[in-house]
């Protein structure tokens, strides 16, 4: 069925300008792309969507010459292509706008815009006056009116993004790849961007548009390709593709599929554990420009609250904001009724709120230290007197948690980097449990760990909640969320768009809530 759809699709459209045919890309231990095909036609705006780890960025990097595919073929303008460097791809006419502005902040706006193709005067020397004039002219077309001699960093993020866009488009591009281009734009700037995209389409330039904002996709894109776990999940026209169906494709859930129960190790005998107690942590109106928009969250003792939503909806940011790791424009966090002041993680930890971060390697584990040291790290202030830490007390705490969490290590003195991913995660859990928190925020606690360890971590979350710990659970795994949480808040574009509890906590309801029109 899908095959016929694909064939019909490629026959109907014009010859693709950029095409991946069965592209495979392997990294040590991971198959990032598994036989992915995608055809980009001139004059179309093609959406590329998928959850974290689906292979979107890898595919973009294959297209732009950052990675070379291990298998399959890349075709550009009807001939096989192999780009050795991003420069090669750029010279061939493939421009990319990255999510983070990838320009040089200290250089002037004009030099950023025209780097590599500055107007030349006599003796091949750069003609500064002509350069500034051209920069002003080009940028005016993108609604950016500024002194182009100023360093780029003095511009707002949106204006910087516009400069990046102008740069990408004004080289002779045939293909423009936009990776989350609107994530830092104001609504007015988004309109300008859409205007530019419309002009590109008229000029016959192919645009690949990567975004999680479904409203935008439906406004500007003609076709869509969905990736999931490194494989092609769907490709076809966007018009007529139901929102709910698109989300189901991204998350890998078939709506008609009978829900299988009990795949996770949560044992949530159906009755809510929260019992009308006052919330142990309560966040009110957390707001940060472009990131969070008045998020309210509360967790009661013994309650597991899930945060649902697509990547980029503000789940991680909410957790970080609660522990003071994300500067806020507005909002307040109350712990046991008392406001948390100072916006520092140290204050949050003292008050009993701990975060197990999403990125174990970058934000959690200290690989050069032992299991014992990693566990004791956060609890050190609590384990000593007058700044002197008792070794015996550390040993005791470490021993208790290693046994209780069944951490498999040769000894407490083994380097934590030598443990498996699951055991590293348990070490991190132990670190935060050792400070005796009232609330534990878990950001993707089971990502990247094997099935057995996953089950153990899930069982542990259950157990901790039963003992009265409040838990905020963030997970992209819908099953884990549904079976582990008593209550689920669904986020979209930095705002809470729905709260599900009791019988409403189902995968279908979560997806339906995500899919609801923002203005519908």
């Amino acid at each position: 069925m899908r095959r016929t759809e694909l064939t019909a699709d490629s026959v109907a459209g014009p010859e693709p300008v950029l095409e991946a045919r069965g592209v495979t890309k392997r990294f040590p231990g991971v198959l990032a792309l598994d036989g992915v095909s995608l055809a980009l036609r001139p004059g179309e705006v093609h959406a590329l969507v998928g959850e974290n780890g689906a292979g979107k960025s890898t595919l973009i990097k294959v297209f732009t010459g950052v990675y070379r595919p291990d298998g399959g073929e890349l075709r550009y303008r009807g001939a096989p292509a192999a780009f050795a460097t991003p420069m090669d791809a750029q010279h061939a006419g493939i421009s990319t706008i990255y999510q983070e502005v990838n320009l040089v902040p200290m250089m002037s706006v004009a030099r950023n815009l025209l780097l590599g193709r500055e107007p030349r005067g006599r003796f091949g020397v750069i003609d500064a006056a002509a350069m500034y004039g051209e920069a002003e002219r080009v940028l005016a077309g993108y609604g950016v009116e500024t002194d182009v001699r100023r360093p780029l960093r003095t511009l707002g993020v949106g204006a910087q993004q516009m400069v990046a866009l102008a740069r990408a488009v004004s080289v002779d591009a045939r293909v423009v790849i936009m990776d989350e281009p609107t994530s830092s734009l104001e609504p007015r700037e988004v309109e300008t961007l859409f205007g530019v995209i419309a002009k590109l389409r008229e000029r016959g330039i192919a645009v690949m548009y990567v975004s999680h904002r479904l409203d935008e996709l439906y406004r500007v894109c003609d076709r869509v390709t969905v990736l999931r776990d490194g494989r092609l999940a769907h490709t076809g026209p966007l018009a007529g593709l139901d929102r709910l169906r698109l989300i189901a494709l991204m998350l890998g859930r078939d709506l008609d599929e009978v829900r299988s129960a009990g795949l996770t190790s949560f044992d949530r005998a159906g009755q809510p554990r929260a019992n009308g107690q006052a919330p142990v942590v309560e966040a009110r109106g957390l707001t940060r420009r472009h990131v969070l928009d008045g998020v309210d969250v509360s967790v009661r003792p013994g309650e597991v609250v899930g945060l649902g939503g697509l990547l980029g909806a503000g789940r991680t940011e909410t957790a970080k904001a609660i522990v003071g790791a994300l500067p806020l424009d507005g909002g307040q966090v109350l712990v046991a009724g008392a406001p948390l002041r100072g916006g520092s993680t140290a204050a949050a930890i003292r008050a009993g709120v701990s975060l197990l971060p999403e990125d174990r390697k970058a934000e959690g584990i200290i690989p050069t230290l032992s299991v014992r040291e990693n566990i004791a790290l956060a609890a050190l202030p609590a384990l000593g007197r007058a700044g002197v830490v008792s070794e015996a007390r550390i040993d005791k705490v470490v021993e208790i948690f290693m046994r209780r969490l069944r951490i498999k290590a040769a000894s407490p003195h083994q380097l934590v980097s030598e443990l498996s991913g699951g055991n590293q995660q348990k070490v991190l859990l132990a670190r935060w449990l050792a400070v005796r928190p009232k609330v534990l925020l878990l950001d993707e606690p089971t990502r990247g760990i094997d099935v057995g360890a996953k089950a153990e971590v899930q069982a542990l979350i259950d157990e901790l909640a039963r003992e009265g710990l409040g838990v905020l659970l963030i997970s992209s795994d819908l099953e884990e969320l549904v079976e582990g949480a008593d209550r689920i808040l669904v986020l979209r574009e930095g705002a809470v768009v729905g709260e599900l509890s009791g019988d409403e906590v189902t995968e279908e309801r979560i997806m339906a809530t995500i899919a609801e029109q923002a203005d519908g």
Partner: protein
Amino acid sequence: MNREQVSRTLQQHGAAMVLGVLVIVGSLAFDSFATPENAASVVVSSSFLAIIAIGMTFVIISGGIDLSVGSLFVLGGVLAAYGSRSGPLVALLLPLAVCGAVGLLQGLVIARTGMAPFIVTLAGLLGVRGLMLAISDEGATTYLVEDRAFAALGQGQLLGLSYPVYVTAALALAAMVLLQRTGFGQNVYAIGGNEQAAALMGVPVARTKVYVYVMSGLLAGLAGALNAARLSSGVTILGIGLELDAIAAVVIGGTLLTGGAGGITGSVAGVLLLGVIQSLINQVGSLTSAFQQVVSGAFLAFVVVAQRLLSKAQRLT
């Protein structure tokens, strides 16, 4: 001018302004300061450091550092004196070839392996010093410049200033054009400002870095050769720690040690500022010249703190 422009102007021209103030104050305070002789002496003795600082400016703007230039300066002098036995051309080209080659080697290692410039050029500093000691029998042998034509390059005068001053001025002008008005110069700024972004914008990062270190090596060798011509000998003990003077001058001149911003005029002003401070301390008489290093050091610390504050002010606007 708004606050951002003020802070930017201060960053770019602060060294020149302080230089101007010091010259005026010095002229008013000491009769023997603002004489043509003293001015010529400051300018001439600054010119060798200025040549090195020009190369260092490129290196630091690209986000790197070159610690080998002091050793290369000495080696260049010894090689020039040694080569002067075979005529003026060899005396000039031998140090350039060897010092350029050392720069090339360092540049290739830094660009290809991604090793830290600090370590690579520290190895260069030690290795080159060893090479120099080997050539000069651990300093026991001093080569004299035996070629008249070559010695004239360092000693000849025009309008009361010796030739190296004109060479320095010409090099500074060429470097300004290279840095501000060519693709290569833009690439140097881009790499120092954000290396990853530069690569994505199509800048040949590795090649540009190699060029920068070759240039720094060549200029250090040239400065050494000119100095040997001026002194008529390749002295082996001068130049220890010269790399730090060059870095200090460049930073005082407003180039950010983190790369991405700065310029040649600032570095030249920084070199002259160090020279003027030394001259003023000599004028005071009661202070030893060791005191000059204390003042220079304090000034450097002041500049670094000021830069930090200035760049903060620019970001806030």
